[in-house]
């Protein structure tokens, strides 16, 4: 990528979309008997993407802890998923705005150079 910050932002957005995918799965399976809420360890996965070598394997899916299971064995909490859904969307929004800013800075450097 262009510079380390943009690369990190790209990793961040990748992880956010991976997590959003799990949130949509959890929501779709809110009434599936025996379904366990899925999540990723965001902090850990982000650190291993940033520090790790190129081509790190895709994030590990884990079962979310500390949720109350219903009698049918399903432990999806719609409130938790709704919170994560909007949180991920907002974080993604911020990251994409920052990437846009980075690209804009580069573009303006090119454009200003033209008139020099």
């Amino acid at each position, binding site marked *: 990528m262009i510079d380390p910050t943009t690369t990190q932002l790209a990793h961040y957005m990748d992880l956010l979309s991976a997590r959003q*995918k799990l949130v949509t*799965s959890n*929501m779709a399976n809110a009434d599936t008997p025996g379904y366990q809420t899925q999540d990723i360890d965001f902090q850990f996965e982000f650190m291993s993407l940033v520090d790790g070598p190129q081509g790190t394997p895709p994030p590990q899916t884990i079962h979310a802890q500390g949720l109350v299971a219903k009698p049918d064995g399903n432990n999806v909490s719609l409130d938790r998923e709704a919170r994560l859904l909007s949180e*991920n969307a907002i974080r993604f929004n911020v990251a994409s705005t920052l990437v846009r800013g980075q690209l804009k800075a580069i573009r303006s450097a090119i454009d200003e150079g033209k008139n020099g």
Partner: protein
Amino acid sequence: MSLFTSLQVSASGMAAERARAEVLVENMANAETTRTPEGGPYRRKDVVFSSDLQASPFSAVFQNELAQGVRVADVTTDDRPPEMRYMPGHPDADSNGYVAFPRMNPAEEMVDLMNASRSYQGNVAAMSAVKDMITKSIDIMK
């Protein structure tokens, strides 16, 4: 590409909840039905969901990982004995004057229907959030 798989997952959730709502509405419509093609009163139906691996239409090309959607695995029929009501004048009454009616609790159906409708809304919200994220990443190029 994983964001497009999310849309697929939410769509599977919406389809499943819609199927569930259809069955619940069928139950309520047939709350007083005493004749069915199989004979006897109508029997209450219910759906069973199971999680289902979703592949996006292009997954074979992009080799992306699968996500867990949902599908209706089975439609079960309630085997509780029918409710016997004493109605000697009814054409379907037995020799003792009792008519077999479906055993149905309107409150049960309404609660299930509300549940299905809320879950459907949840999936719609998830889909629009993901759609927004896709639009935002397209906007980076502008």
